């Protein structure tokens, strides 16, 4: 059944699905008809990202002069649109002296990295590999 569905997907659509999957966690799976997986990713990853904000973690800026900060920013941006919404709302400034600061960072970075895995999974499904 999955291979048949994948046969109908054009290569350009595959990349659109990946872009949607990155922008909104779970959107790629929802697009491909994997409703249960899509909704699970949507809820779990957004909840993880919001928990990181609530724990006063920081959304790191892209600073090439500081490679570790740039890598953290790369992980953060993996969550997609929620990252930019949080930035626009001036959330995720981070409070270094907060006892939960590092926990918040871990939540947000791992949410972004997990969403990257979700994008790869959506790509595999669209290619008919799963």
């Amino acid at each position, binding site marked *: 059944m999955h291979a048949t569905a994948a046969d109908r997907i054009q290569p350009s659509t595959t990349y659109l699905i990946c872009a949607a999957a990155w922008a909104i966690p779970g959107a790629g799976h929802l697009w491909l008809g994997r409703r*249960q*997986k899509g909704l*699970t*990713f949507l809820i*779990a*990853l957004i*909840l*993880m990202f919001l*928990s990181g904000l609530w724990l006063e973690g920081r959304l790191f800026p892209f600073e090439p002069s500081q490679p570790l900060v740039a890598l953290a920013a790369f992980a953060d941006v993996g969550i997609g649109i929620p990252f930019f919404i949080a930035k626009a709302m001036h959330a995720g400034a981070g409070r270094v002296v907060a006892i939960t600061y590092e*926990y918040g960072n*871990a*939540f947000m970075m*791992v949410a972004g990295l*997990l969403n990257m*895995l*979700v994008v790869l*999974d959506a790509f595999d499904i669209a290619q008919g590999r*799963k």
Partner: protein
Amino acid sequence: MAFFSLLVSVVFATLTRDDPREQVRFGARLFAAFVGAGIIAGWVLYPLPF
């Protein structure tokens, strides 16, 4: 830590298993492993002075 483990377990189980019952079983095992490893690591590091 438990909440973090729960969310990561849910995502990994959903990602790697297709059958919902398999997802629950694998997710529960993963969650138990995360929490167990956290507790063991905590006790192993407990005697260290820094």
